[in-house]
């Protein structure tokens, strides 16, 4: 119950102010189509430089939580998911809005989000210290395999093509080796002075997540968001609470599915929402009503996508393996303050990590309260022309990258990676494994070199990296995730081919 000891830290004027700012800002930005939670958090990192580590993390954590929930606003009122995590919400949420139940749909989505989110954060609170103690048993070989696991799992499960996902991960791992080698001080792949000190993670994150979205907005040409905003009528809030609590099955399924999926590195909120929706539909006696504006669809999807937020941070805080792209960005937020997550985090920096986790707990409640208050208004941000949105994001990306190290080199790296990522995405590559490779590359290399030195002095490299049950377990998970993804890809291809043939 150590977390209770640090609960008061959340309520200091600055910390609570930042929590409010992150929550309200996240709700508004989350409701904006085109601004993903990952991009929002990445753009916010430069604003945390001047803050104490726990304050910076409180701001980023609040933004993460509420952008996921805020995405439901545009999903319900515009049928445009604010984030991939809200895709399942559109299925019943928008239909409810079309039937004049927009306010009810928004209310139940925020209440379900808060309940799922609270459960997820409690999992984070109780699972993380246990797992952190367990992680102390990890040596260099296990940490090397763990880093490879992080890249391959997200590379295979988060991408539509296994080969392209793994290739993205390799590109990220290669980018991480640019600069001076840590042991010998030798120059590696320094093709331009901007990368002589290696690739700075924060500008890279900003570029990889923000610039492709800016160019995607350019690609749509001179047009506004072509969706009609449905006007929200008043709806008694008490009725919404009663509605959510009367649909316990959907709430339980959503919360459980979201929590489990959140714990698996690489499987994001999008999948959590869709799986929870699907399972809830299968187990409901009213399954025929799903898709016709059924509250259970909204409850299952929204409780799931917020329940995954807390657990997705468990692998990050215990093993330094980000469970999702947004968790990878949060890792960047930790690294700029000189904090390296891992088993020792809770003993070395309890004054940073507990207020951060506690703020996510309080943030869920604030997100629900402010979500209910500003939901109808927040949808109006969709009226902002794409041109303005693109120009704002571009300006923030350039200023944000520069402010990391007051270096034009960082701006060049940000712009170059962002432009390259846009074109890579058009050809089926994904940013998430590339980012994971970039972040986990130094961890993988440091542990590989350390392990190789131990191995050379003891039992030899093959024996060192390929013996021990933990090494084998990790290797097995790597192989299983790749194998499963290949099987799924082939299966999907077979179905597509069959459908094509029938058509």
């Amino acid at each position: 119950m150590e977390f209770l000891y640090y609960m008061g830290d959340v309520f200091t004027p600055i910390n609570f102010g930042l929590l409010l700012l992150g929550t309200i800002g996240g709700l508004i930005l989350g409701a904006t189509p085109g601004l993903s939670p990952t991009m929002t958090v990445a753009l916010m990192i430069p604003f945390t430089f001047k803050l104490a580590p726990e304050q910076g993390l409180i701001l980023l954590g609040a933004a993460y939580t509420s952008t996921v929930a805020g995405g439901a606003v545009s999903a319900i009122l515009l049928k445009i998911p604010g984030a991939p995590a809200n895709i399942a919400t559109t299925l019943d949420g928008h239909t409810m809005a079309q039937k004049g139940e927009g306010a009810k749909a928004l209310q139940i989505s925020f209440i379900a989000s808060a309940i799922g989110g609270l459960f997820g954060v409690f999992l984070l609170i109780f699972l993380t210290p246990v797992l952190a103690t367990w992680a102390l048993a990890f040596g260099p070989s296990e940490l090397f395999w763990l880093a490879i696991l992080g890249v391959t799992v997200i590379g295979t499960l988060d991408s539509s093509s296994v080969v392209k996902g793994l290739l993205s991960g390799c590109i990220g791992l290669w980018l991480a080796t640019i600069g001076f080698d840590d042991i010998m001080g030798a120059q590696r792949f320094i093709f331009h002075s901007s990368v002589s000190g290696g690739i700075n993670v924060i500008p890279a994150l900003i570029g990889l997540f923000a610039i492709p979205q800016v160019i995607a907005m350019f690609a749509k040409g001179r047009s506004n968001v072509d969706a009609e905003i449905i006007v929200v009528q008043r709806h008694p809030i008490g009725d919404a609470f009663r509605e959510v609590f009367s649909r316990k099955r959907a709430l339980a399924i959503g919360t459980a599915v979201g929590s489990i999926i959140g714990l698996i590195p690489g499987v994001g909120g999008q999948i959590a929402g869709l799986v929870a929706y699907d399972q809830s539909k299968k187990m409901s006696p009213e399954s025929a009503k799903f898709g016709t504006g059924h509250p259970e669809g909204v409850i299952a999807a929204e409780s799931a996508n917020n329940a995954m937020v807390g657990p997705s941070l468990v692998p990050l805080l215990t093993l330094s393996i980000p469970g999702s792209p947004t968790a990878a960005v949060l890792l960047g937020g930790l690294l700029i303050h000189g904090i390296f997550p891992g088993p020792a985090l809770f003993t070395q920096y309890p004054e940073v990590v507990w207020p951060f986790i506690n703020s996510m707990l309080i943030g869920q409640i604030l997100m629900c309260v402010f979500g209910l208050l500003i939901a109808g208004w927040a949808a109006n941000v969709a009226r902002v022309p794409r041109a303005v949105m693109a120009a704002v994001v571009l300006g923030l990306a350039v200023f944000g990258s520069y402010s990391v190290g007051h270096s034009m080199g960082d701006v060049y790296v940000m712009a170059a990676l962002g432009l390259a990522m846009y074109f890579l995405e058009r050809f089926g590559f994904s940013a998430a494994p590339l980012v994971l490779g970039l972040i986990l590359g130094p961890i993988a290399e440091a542990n590989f070199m350390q392990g190789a030195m131990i191995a050379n002095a003891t039992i030899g490299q093959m024996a060192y990296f390929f013996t021990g049950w933990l090494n084998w377990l990790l290797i097995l998970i790597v192989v299983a995730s790749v194998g499963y993804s290949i099987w799924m890809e082939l299966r999907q291809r077979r179905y597509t081919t069959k459908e094509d043939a029938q058509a």
Partner: protein
Amino acid sequence: MNDLPRTQHIIASGAIAAVGITVAYISYTQEPAAAFVFPRLIATVFAMLAIWTFVKAVMGRTKVGQGLSGQDMRNLLPGLIVTLVYAFWGAKELGFYTATTITFFILLALYDPAPHTEAKTWIKRVLITAGFMAVMYGLFAMLLNVYTPREIFS
């Protein structure tokens, strides 16, 4: 898959394969070899996967990625040029605030769907640009004390 995306896939995967092979070549030939042990491991997998992707693209068996349509290219090209000029030249040579003001205004003029013929539209664009720059100055110059390169007009 029609011919345009196929050609695009060949070009894109060819470029990636070229990078992969170059990285592998450098990893295996550069000295000191001990500094390239880990890059060699990565580069080998990188090059193999990149060549696999390229071969699939040449054979027309690429399943993922829609490529870019001509319309997409026409739409994004002006914005892309403005972005490149801004990030790689304007911000340093003109100063961050000057370059951002110009870029922001040009992007609004290029992509805002409001009619160009109305004076009201232009006034709105000027006001939005001024508002955004005021926020950026407040945030980065006053709140975060970020010292940017000297402005051309200062």
